[in-house]
């Protein structure tokens, strides 16, 4: 009969195995990086404690929310929703040619492939809100520059993801279509597209969610949507109005998040 192992001995063994040198090394590295970063940003407990009364004061001013502005917020809220929808639709369409030319197995020439990749990298390189800043300079304040900013960024991301999906497709159907003498784009249409479409739709729906979130803050730089209402309310210290706008943002994002998730589950 095997000797009974006491529970404490068992846990001791587990703990001993847990503290392997590699794990200790990783933990130590994280601590060092954190210490370096915390010193640089001057984030500390005393700082937090000093800030707490002011934060408490602002939170106090935020409640109760001023619901009388709700009527005025309905317009910007719809605009936010529309910015997200339109930007996603345009970006989804633009991403298809970009994805085609940025896939190494589809691009007609290596230079085209490299060029398209570079363009997509630039599109993705800068955040939406900075693109928004530029488009506001170009076409003036309003929702239009917001749509353009989101289109640029999400074309960059969806295009890259689509290109990767195209590169990963099963070669069989491509060979089969090509052996019939089909041209390149027909190979794409009949051999590749059916394979990548579910993934592509998933990305588009995901970016609809993402773009709606971004559309709520584009107004900070004057690019339309509810962000502008929010920005002016906070800048003018009308915190009880800001709370209403934030509540509307929470509801809007939650609905879009749920819808996007539901559609993704249906299509994929």
């Amino acid at each position, binding site marked *: 009969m095997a000797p009974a192992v006491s*529970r404490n001995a*068992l*846990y001791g063994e587990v703990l001993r195995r*847990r503290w392997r040198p590699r794990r200790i090394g990783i933990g130590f590295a*994280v601590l060092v*990086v*954190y210490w*370096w*970063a*915390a010193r*640089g*940003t*001057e*984030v500390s407990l005393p*700082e937090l404690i000093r*800030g707490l009364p*002011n*934060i408490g*004061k*602002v939170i106090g001013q935020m409640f109760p929310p001023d619901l009388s502005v709700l009527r005025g917020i309905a317009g910007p809220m*719809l*605009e936010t*929703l*529309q*910015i997200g*929808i*339109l930007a996603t*639709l345009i970006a989804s369409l633009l991403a298809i040619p970009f994805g085609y030319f940025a896939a190494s197995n589809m691009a007609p020439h290596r230079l085209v492939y490299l060029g398209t990749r570079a363009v997509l*990298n*630039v599109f993705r*390189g*800068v*955040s939406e*809100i*900075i693109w928004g*800043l*530029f*488009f506001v*300079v*170009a*076409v*003036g304040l*309003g*929702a*239009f520059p917001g*749509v353009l900013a989101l289109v640029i960024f999400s074309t960059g991301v969806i295009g890259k993801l689509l290109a990767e999906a195209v590169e990963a497709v099963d070669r069989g159907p491509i060979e089969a279509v090509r052996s019939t003498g089909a041209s390149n784009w027909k190979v794409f249409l009949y051999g590749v597209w059916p394979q990548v479409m579910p993934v592509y739709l998933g990305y588009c729906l995901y970016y609809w969610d993402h773009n709606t*979130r*971004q559309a*709520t*803050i584009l107004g*900070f730089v004057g690019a339309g949507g509810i962000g502008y209402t*929010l*920005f002016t309310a*906070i*800048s003018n*210290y009308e*915190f009880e109005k800001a709370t209403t706008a934030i509540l509307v*943002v*929470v509801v809007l994002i*939650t609905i879009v998040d749920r819808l996007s998730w539901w559609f993704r589950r249906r299509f994929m």
Partner: protein
Amino acid sequence: MSNATEPSLSIAFARRRELRMQVVCVSLGVIVLAGWSSWGTGFDIPQLIAGLPNIYDLARRMLPPDLSVIRELIRPLVETLQMAVVGTVLAAGLALPLGILAANNTSPHPLLAVTVRMCLNTLRTIPELVFALLLVSAVGLGTFPGVLALTLHATGGLGKFFTEAIESVNPTVSEAIEATGATRYQVIWFGVLPSALPLMMSSSLFYWEYNSRASTILGLVGAGGIGFTFTSAMQAFEYPKATSCLVLIVLILAMIDRISAWLRARVI
């Protein structure tokens, strides 16, 4: 023979008609949505074309980047990275207990789980830029409100990921440990958390990448980092300096993208 094929053929045709109807309905819906959204956002291609000279003008003033200021940009750039690290580590520290409270298999009470989950969802839906703007008006300009804003938003996001990671742990693991007569705390510490650890590390790395991207724009509302340098340069019409900031942002984000992907491939 013909008796066997005809019904299946008619079924195939019916299915095809049904599919075509679905495609038509979805397309119509998308077109209506696109029309409604472009009307609401004032989408106007001629306006974009009319604005092209403005973009050209801005680009001419921004290029070439002023590389002589790179030296003074290093500090804000490092600060940006540090904000992301602190924001992520603090958020992971907060999200761990919250995730345990919110997960169905570890929460002490279902009601508590639902409440915590609701709080996490709310934190997640409010963009970090909104938190930053509120905190800047509470505690003043600087990296401190920026770090807090990143922490708040990432706590919501990581809390959700951690909850899902904990819930996905195979129940036999905790049952086996329970069978040794372990307490609830011991089951979580020795059974659930070790199994959920790889997923939790991977999502923390994802949020480190996300926060790095977000921290580059927090400066737009005065919450520190290179975004603040960028905004100040734009407002002072020092366009070549602003371009240098953008170049650095793009380079550093591409680097972090790589590092994060490499690390995530190692922990999973």
